[in-house]
């Protein structure tokens, strides 16, 4: 098996034992990128030279006998929304084209320190606003299962890179489903950790109270290893939780559901869901029962209000977060010809630099926060948010985890929903409740839909700081399906 098809855990072991060098591993992935990324367009920026330099450093340290983490020497791709002090960081927007941060995000810094090799930065919907990467100012990424389809979003470059074996690991951010939905539609594992479980410092903000960095991998254990490597309290993010990181790696190794109480969320399924998605989901429910879990139906009646609440809270926060892009200190500047006022230059720059979806959300949020409308919109949405958290709390009194399909449909064709924001927003129907309440949730592959042969994801939701439960159940499902399928789901993907 070639190096690019190995798991991250295995690559880490090979590099540590010097059976393979980090340089070889990195080169293999750089070759793969050169071979297929013209078709997939997962990356916005690849720095082969810098990656090989980092790999050489890791090899030298290992040769000297330095004790490094389990992922030292393993390549990774970062969503281009994490600040990197040696690469451009664009957030998928023209307004930041060419901007190079003078500092690293805490996530990128911790992963550098753990010896991971940064291959480059991946594509995303502009400022993480979208479910398909079609809102990227630099063009869409493509789903390795069917290049005419979307790889999910907003972290679609990261899911496409991992699903097409260009990187064994990648980072993403999940504000309304932006990790879980792309993972589901590309047949890989994507985890939204508990909000505050990892630092947002250096992550370009979309919606501060929802944004959560998380891992992509091709298997549950790799995702857990990656999450563990960047998680934990950060003094630069006061909303990061000052508590021990849940034992995610141990749980991923354990992978066992015997005696576990699992709740199927009544409101997240049924009408509007693709039959092939529901078929795979019900099959998974049967599988979990056969593995010894007690499965019951649980009702979370307020989840129906999650989508509208989200589309008030997220745009409100984004309208304020994105105000800093004003041409004064960094990024694009338009119209500064000496005749125009600062205000005019700000307006011209923002008009030219932001794409239509970003503008739509800024306007939505500005409206929702304005005086006279605040109580009816933002205030009301916050109340809904509280009610959703209460529904989760009540549910987690009855069961250990909740499950649902990750997305209502499989990957849709590029362009199909581009002019229909509401249809696009529905892609996050099942994932949004966990963002609003801040609890942990993962998506793991659970098969291919009969009608289109495209991957379907299972979402496993656990309480705040119960991230390990997501991994425990995810690993059990993964093991059982791998046995049933005779290998990982991705082995069924077409070769590029």
């Amino acid at each position, binding site marked *: 098996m070639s190096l690019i098809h190995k798991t991250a855990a295995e690559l880490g072991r090979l590099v540590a034992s010097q059976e393979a060098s980090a340089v070889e591993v990195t080169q293999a992935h750089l070759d793969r990128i050169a071979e297929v990324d013209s078709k997939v367009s997962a990356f916005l920026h690849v720095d082969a030279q810098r990656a090989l330099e980092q790999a050489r450093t890791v090899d030298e340290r290992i040769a000297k006998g330095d004790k490094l983490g389990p992922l030292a020497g393993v390549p990774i791709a970062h969503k281009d929304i994490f600040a990197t002090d040696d690469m451009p960081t664009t957030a998928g927007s023209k307004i930041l084209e060419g901007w190079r941060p003078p500092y690293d995000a805490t996530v990128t810094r911790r992963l550098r320190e753990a010896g991971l090799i940064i291959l480059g930065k991946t594509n995303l919907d502009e400022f993480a606003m979208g479910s398909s990467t079609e809102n990227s100012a630099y063009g869409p990424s493509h789903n390795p299962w069917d290049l005419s389809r979307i790889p999910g979003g907003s972290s679609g470059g990261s899911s496409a890179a991992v699903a097409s074996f260009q990187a064994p690991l990648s980072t993403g951010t999940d504000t309304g489903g932006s990790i879980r939905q792309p993972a589901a539609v590309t047949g890989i594992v994507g985890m939204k950790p508990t909000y505050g479980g990892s630092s947002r410092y250096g992550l370009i903000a979309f919606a501060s109270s929802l944004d959560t960095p998380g891992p992509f991998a091709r298997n549950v254990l790799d995702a857990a290893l990656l999450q563990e490597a960047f998680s934990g309290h950060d003094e630069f993010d*006061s909303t990061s939780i000052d508590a021990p990181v849940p034992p995610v790696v141990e749980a991923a190794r354990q992978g066992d559901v015997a005696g576990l109480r699992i709740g199927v969320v009544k409101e997240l399924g049924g009408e509007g869901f693709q039959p092939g998605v529901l078929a795979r989901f019900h099959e998974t429910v049967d599988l979990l029962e056969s593995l010894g879990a007690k499965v019951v139906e649980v009702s979370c009646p307020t989840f129906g209000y999650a989508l509208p609440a989200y589309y008030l809270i997220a745009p409100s926060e984004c309208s304020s977060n994105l105000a*800093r892009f004003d041409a004064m200190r960094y990024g694009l500047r338009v119209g500064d010809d000496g005749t125009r006022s600062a205000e005019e230059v700000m307006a011209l720059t923002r008009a030219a630099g932001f794409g239509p979806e970003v503008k739509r959300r800024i306007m939505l949020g500005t409206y929702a*926060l*304005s005086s006279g409308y*605040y109580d009816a919109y933002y205030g009301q949405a916050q109340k809904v948010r509280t009610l959703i958290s209460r529904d989760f709390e009540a549910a987690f009194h009855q069961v250990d985890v909740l499950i649902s399909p990750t997305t209502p449909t499989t990957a849709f064709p590029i362009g199909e929903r581009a002019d229909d924001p509401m249809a696009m927003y529905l892609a996050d129907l099942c994932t949004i409740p966990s963002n609003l309440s801040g609890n942990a949730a993962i998506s793991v592959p659970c098969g291919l839909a009969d009608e289109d042969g495209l991957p379907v994801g299972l979402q496993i939701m656990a309480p705040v700081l119960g991230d390990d439960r997501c991994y425990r159940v995810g690993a059990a499902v993964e093991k059982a399906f791998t046995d049933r399928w005779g290998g990982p789901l991705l082995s069924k993907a077409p070769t590029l």
Partner: protein
Amino acid sequence: MAETVTLMPYDEALERFEPVLGLETHVELGTASKMFCGCPTTFGAPPNTHVCPICLALPGSLPVANVKAIESTIRIGLALNCSIAEWCRFARKNYFYPDMPKNYQISQYDEPLCTDGYLDVQVEGKTVRVEIERVHLEEDTGKSTHVGGATGRIQGADYSIVDYNRAGIPLVEIVTKPVEGTDRLAPEVAKAYVTELRELLRSLGVSDVRMEEGSLRCDVNVSLMPRGSSTWGTRTETKNVNSLRSVERSVRGEIERQAAILADGGRIIQETRHFHEDTGATTSGRSKEEAQDYRYFPEPDLVPIAPDPAWVATLKAELPELPSVRRARIQAEWGVSDLDMAAMHNADAIELVEATVAAGAPAADARKWWMGELARRANEAGTALADLPITPGDVAKVTELVASGALNDKLARQVLEGVLAGEGAPEAVVEKRGLRIVNDEGELSAIIDQVLAGNADAADKVRSGKIAAVGALVGGVMKASRGKADAGRARELILEKLGVEG
């Protein structure tokens, strides 16, 4: 666009209208680091050197609240008799302006840290209670300089430059409730409030409270209502009031301006006005009628503030002696009349006198010099007493020299003049100017002999018993010694030489 301003004489304005005041004071805290990042807060650094990804609002950066600033705000609230919130949040105040890096200011909105307090001030011997609405914590903006154009403001400027050193410095906003019933004393009440507040803040050690450097800034709200009415008029907010004297002048000026408009049947526009130190006039700024919608919402990047009540109780117990209490104690210790105490307070002399006493001077002497000769000098120079180039130590030294007989009052004034002129410390001035009292008996005796010889008539009168005539002789000795003789000793010697019993 110049506006024509008509004023109504103050007395007439007060006959017809009653003023209602409101004061919003911004205080830059003297914490070592900024409100949400680790940058230093020292004043006067080269532009844009005290900056980092956080206070420049680089994408991805996040604020972390400065605990020391929260502590200072709570202490201010406690000293102002406020209730301290058990749980409150920061809020974002959204508006675009180039000197505000995030284009929102992290402030507090409907959940201030401290609420409902008061500050008592003394004006013309009576106590006025100024009620405090709220004390909250926020961050300062950067500083814009608008180059070119007539007004020094952004409109019409050729270009603007921004220094972000100040961006993110912790700023406490102290807002009074409307102050009614001050009547004709409104300007004095406003000044007394800011003076008292400044002393209180200084005593807490939370800020250097320098109005001229902008670490204490005051916005003055004034509205008028016709006598007999109980409905408040439309208020204006005057900014850029950068000295205690300006606080007083701006209130007076605004009363005169508004009264003229109202008397003429006009209406007051709710607006921000800018005070001009040189003319004492205000000019119209941004109109608040096209009101900004700040779209406040709770700051999601910061966790709520929930001060532990036990900690707040400790802070309260550890508050220093507050200025009004201290003044009462000092007054008793020094045995000063209410009037003299008030005079010292108004002249901002209490701390100077206190420091002079601490340096060894008797309180009465210290007060005499600061409130007499030095106050006169400060007045002539148009500066604050504290800004005179003389230290309390210098003044204490002068009182010591007088007490020891080395100087008399007249010479002491010359010494002070020398110190103020930059000639050095008092002893150096005495040395350089040769100001020591002549108490060498031989030299004095020689001068007396000379004076007696030249004033034989006067000497005879004294000899014949008209002792009053000795004054002229002493005067002659003082003149001949150019004021350096000890007049008392000279009198004794003259009488002795003339064989008369004093």
